[in-house]
């Protein structure tokens, strides 16, 4: 008895009515029966492999797309940092002391002389304080890339198995 037949017999209920048992035996002994069975098992294997492959391909493609997005975002961060630096410098140039002085002169202002000043007490006035460029809190760290974006299916399975084992 072949392995397939044993498997078939194990799957089918052995306690069948005699008539059904006879028909089943005739069917099992039909010449095309074994070929169909092999074809079915082969197709089952192919479909199974195709499904796993499709799943793997899907995950890989998703990871690749995410990877490309990360690369793009990293480039975008660099670009934005350069834009910020350029804008900051542009603002500083527009507010440079020479530019401001030139604009003030153009608007009719003149530097005040020592003997033109009058001093008075302003209750509650607090003079210039030391410049603070920070809030006193350290800069927050950038979020890291979750492992889902750079681990393979096997890595993920391995991780799940380890996690399950540790629990």
């Amino acid at each position, binding site marked *: 008895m072949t392995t397939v037949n044993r498997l078939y017999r194990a799957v089918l209920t052995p306690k069948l009515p005699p008539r059904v048992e006879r028909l089943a035996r005739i069917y099992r002994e039909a010449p095309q029966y074994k070929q169909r069975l092999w074809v079915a098992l082969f197709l089952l294997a192919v479909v199974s492999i195709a499904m796993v492959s499709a799943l793997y391909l899907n995950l*890989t493609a998703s*990871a*690749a*797309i*995410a*990877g*490309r997005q*990360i*690369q793009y975002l*990293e480039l975008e961060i660099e*670009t934005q*940092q*350069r*834009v910020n*630096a*350029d804008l*900051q*410098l542009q*603002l*500083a*140039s527009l*507010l*440079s*002391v*020479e530019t401001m*002085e030139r604009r003030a002169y153009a608007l009719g202002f003149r*530097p*005040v*002389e*020592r003997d033109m*000043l009058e*001093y008075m*007490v302003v209750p509650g006035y607090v*003079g*210039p304080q*030391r*410049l*603070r*460029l*920070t*809030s*006193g*809190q*350290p*800069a927050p*760290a*950038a979020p*890291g*890339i979750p492992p889902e*974006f*750079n681990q*393979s299916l096997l890595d993920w399975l391995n991780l799940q198995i380890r996690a399950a084992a540790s629990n």
Partner: protein
Amino acid sequence: MRQQYQWRSVVLIVFFALLGLSILVQIVRIQTSEQANDFRDIADLYSGYYRTFYPARGDIYDRDGHLLAGNRTVYEVGVNLRDIKNPETIALTVSVTLGMNYDNTLASLKNPPMNTNTIPPQPLVYLVLKDFVTPENAEYLKEVKQNLDDNYTPGGDSLAGLEFKPRLARSYPEKSIAANMLGFVNFEGRGYFGVEEKYNDLLAGVPVRMWVPSNPNRVEEIPVIPSGASLVLTIDREVQLAVEDILDRSVASTGSVSGTIIVMHPQTGEILAMASTPQLDLNQFWQYGQVYNNAMEFNRGISQIYEPGSIYKVFTLAAALDSGAVNANSSYLDIGYYSLGGAAIYNWDQGAWGPQNLVGCMQHSLNVCMSWLADTMGPETFYTYMRRFGIGHPTGTDMSGEAAGRLKVPGDADWHLVDLATNSFGQGVAVTPIQMLMAASSIANEGKMVLPHVVRSIVSNGRQNDSSVQVIGTPISAQSARLTTEILATALENGESLGLVPGYRIAGKTGTAQIPAPNGLYLSDQINASFIGWGPVDDPQFMVFVWLEKPQSEDWASLVAAPVFKEVVERMVVLLDIPPDAIRSQLNGQ
């Protein structure tokens, strides 16, 4: 029939099995062959690349937060030589747009230089045409390239291969303002001079070199690279601009070779302004060689030593009072000369000024009187005080390129007893302006000598660290400092100095120093004119040092340097909101 098909099936199965097997064998054979490592290396070359991530260089601000040094985008324009379609078009376009030589560019494109980093040397794959290209020019080139690509016909014009790599480079929005103390950053990103060099490591940050895989599945997280630390300086840009303006006008009007003005807060050591001529537009730092003859000219305030002349008498007086050699009531009979070490010391006018108290000695700037003070103290005491004042040593200020100066002391091969006399009035001693300020701060600041500095805060990783007052030492007592200040202020008032500012009581001293020639003799027609002063005397808020080198308009510092001091103070009390003494007393009383 079935047998025939079965045979064919067997043949096909065997064929494909052998094919698959041979592929497997070949895979194993290649991976275990002698060349396997070479293949892996080649594969690694295409799997990614190492890239160094440079953090943005930290910014530099003045004390009020105005940006003095920032960053801007520049482009490196290069050519990927494998992608070139028409080298003539590239050479012509970049020569017109970027001002490059057409023939040289074309020759480089057609016969690229060899990459000597490879063994054996191989032709370059990527050729840098020009760096530090402005965004405007880069955008224009990109646009031209796109237009040519859209209308490309084989053999026609094309800029294919031209590549643009953006990055940040140093830029100075205030151009030449505070250039002497800021320094600059060269093409390689290294700071030179001033705070740019002194704090280069902090400003530049820590570059990170990492592998960047081409395979998106293997993308690595780029670590957060913090920018370089930012600096907040002590200088006030309005005061700095005013000082530079006054200095430029003074140098021009007096016909001086150069000039230096430093403004410092005598109680904290914070430098509010520091200017010396000439100044360089830091955005065009490559013109350094055309502007300066040597490195010490970049910031004369810390790098250039000179014989200070009579302003040095301030320290002799302070030392004599503090050591107890003389007191406030001491007097001296000036007979026109003082003999010491076999030499005779004379006054600036060769005259005898008769009986003089200490105020008179300072008011008339008598060399003979100073020689007497030094001789009374003796060499050991005199030079001990000079060392306490920091003469002949770098102050340790936070700018790069500080010179030490020179103070000959007993025991040195070239020291003679007459040096005690000449040193007492500022001859035979070499100092830097920053040394003079630091030493004088002890007199203005109740005996406490503070370190001159320009960095007020360092901002790094979201935290701001503020500098504090650093007292270097206490060379004289508070009582001696107050007495010295009083004598100097009275001397200025009695002498009706041109450095006096109405409404503000000021202490100070002029210095007219002859310039030693290489043969050791002093030039008769060239002087260094200096003035150092501080005020208001009862609560000093500023200390101003003025030095004009070889002025041609007048022969005396009292006529050349003192008016410059006055002009600086008059502008500064407005900008720093320092009321006149009388008003300040009223305000304090309210």
